[in-house]
């Protein structure tokens, strides 16, 4: 892109982030907003906290800056960056998922889904249930059922 335009993002806490348009169009949601011409002043992102938003912007920047070449070093660098990126604690990861789901960044979404899948992988149902309970993850309903279920199973 020849011109450099900046986009202002306003988050949940009311803080504003000024980013290049090149970076800002990484999330599809924002891209669509810009396309629709709603981004003249600032883009409100009411359900993303500043911590997460800064993390997301960091990720987008990294991915934009890294040349889209087949260069091995660049790819490896990006991979290690991604690896460190998702090495957050589960609470952050959880927030990230929600933010990502809203912002719709495909690469990052894929990355996080895979991370969660890896966390689930290799666990026994009991462990998984435990994990879910402690982190209150993925818990949309039937708390009672699950607890009952495993209690009776251990009987």
């Amino acid at each position, binding site marked *: 892109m020849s011109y450099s335009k900046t986009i202002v993002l306003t988050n949940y806490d009311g803080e504003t982030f000024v980013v290049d348009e090149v970076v800002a169009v990484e999330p599809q949601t924002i891209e669509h907003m810009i396309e629709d011409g709603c981004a003249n002043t600032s883009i409100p992102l009411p359900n993303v906290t500043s911590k997460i938003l800064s993390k997301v912007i960091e990720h987008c920047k990294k991915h934009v800056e890294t040349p889209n070449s087949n260069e091995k070093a660049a790819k490896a660098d990006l991979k290690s960056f991604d690896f460190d990126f998702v090495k957050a604690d589960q609470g952050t990861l*959880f927030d990230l998922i929600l933010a990502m789901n809203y912002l719709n960044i495909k690469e990052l979404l894929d990355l996080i889904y895979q991370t*969660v899948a890896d966390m689930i*992988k290799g666990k026994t*149902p009991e462990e*998984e249930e435990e994990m879910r309970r402690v982190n209150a993850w993925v*818990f*949309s309903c039937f708390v009672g059922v699950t607890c009952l279920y495993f209690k*009776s*199973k251990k*009987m």
Partner: protein
Amino acid sequence: MLISRILNWNALIRSVRDQCFGYKMISENLVGEASLHQELEVLSVSKRLVRSLSQKIKRKNHEDEPNGISLRCPALYTRGGGCKVGATTGDEFGEIGCRRRSASSIEDGKGYKPVCGPEDTNVDCFSHGLKERFRRRSIRKAPEVEGVHVFLPDDIVEMCLVRLPLTSLMKARLVCKKWRFLTTTPRFMQMRRNRLYQSPWLFLFGAVKSGFCSHEIHAFDVSSNKWHTISSEVIKGRFMFSVVSIQENVYIVGGCSSLTNFGKLDRSSVKTHKGVLVFSPLTNLWHKVASMKHARSKPVLGVCEVNSDSLTIKTQHTRQDRRLVRTRINGISDVYEDPHRLSVRRQLRYPFDEPEVTLRPKNENPSGKDSRRFLIIAVGGVGSWDEPLDSCEVYDSSSNKWTEVQRLPVDFGVVCSTTFCNGLFYAYSESDNLAAYDIERGYWFRIQTTTLPPRVHEYYPTIISCENRLFMVSVSWCEGDGQIGRRNKAVRKLWELDLVYLNWEELSTHPDAPMDWNTTFVGDKNMIFGVEMFKIFGQVLDFLTMFDVSGGSKNWVHVSRNQVAHELDASSCATKMMAVLRL
């Protein structure tokens, strides 16, 4: 798992009963089944539910009567909001039908512990539970644990779960109903299939244990490097069958079983099968599909997926052709060496008078779930009278029918391998002939390759197709010109046929010495898997190797060594069959 659910059910019954006691609603008056039915139907509860409930109550009553307690609760289920039961109810009803049978057997065995504790019961009203059953996706309040108010939407959970390998997915299904529900929908399975989250599994058939054809199927999960054993009585006693994998099923075609010693690997008097069995590892279920026209053991199979709905299969059924060569020839002899050249004469007829049968799939697919159509070609094999066959038949999944197609070309030799590549079924014979069958036009034609890879003729080559490329694994001498010498050693080599210039090019050398005469190689997407099994120093060894055709490295990778075969007989080396599935 089942037991726990039953216990839940019992707990429910108990809690219902306790509630009734608590509400002082015990009535010793006899209120018949009829009134219960009526009241339930007023509430417009499904009849099945009514039945199962009343049966449950009846059984309970029956059980309790000796103790002098009779449960007669007229207003039990009629109080829409008043009757409190465990949160499990709504969901439990969904599967009550299948559980009812086993419930009775368990009931008297276990003591009923009160499962519904105060902290985790989620006491709920019955009608709500019912609503839950009919409208599962009702949105509940997200639970609040440790002050974190979190809630993940179903689609995100689904996207995470879809990335799990099969074994983890199966475990994840046990976590809760929600996950189970999310992961068993056809949409989910389709997504898993399309996004290539599946990993290869190798299924090893035809194991022989202490003289008997074992009912065990050994499955190897490549991603987690683990062997599993599946027991299936269906294929017990059958040997010399061929297997082929299609989507998530394995087709077991033909084979024979001993007539005198059932279950034994005894080739003195055998019945050769026409039947085709389908094994679906995901459900561990077997079913039958249409049988072949001719009984065959060890037929050579190829499979292809067809996209066009209007593909016609040219059949060849004239009267002369129907006649089988019913001569008793020893297993090894070649049909082409019969003095009267029956097969040749048959072959020389002009093919113009062949009737043509168009197999158009019906509009409504019988299976419904998988609309993909595929064809299996079964070539050659050994017939009921131990005669080598040169006939071919094609199975069409959309019509569930086998159709006889043109025989192999004259003087082609005994076919030893076939595969589907670029719209053609390729077949390779023991006498190094390559032919291809065009399904749309319905005939075989010879392919003359410019070069012929030198090979040791005792080992039969295998042709494999991966990513629309045609490969062959054959054994050749490393040095020299094919003469057995002191310094020569045999190696297994992978060749690729250039489909334009038709010459074989050497691609890679297999690291293992060729010990097994019957090594099986199967292609799957971009991988070639091979299993070698042989007896040496009184021990049966097995080696699983893998080759990535798309990768830059030209090396075979060992995926498993000596993990299954040690308890098998040496004859399993000859009877083994392998299929690769993406699960």
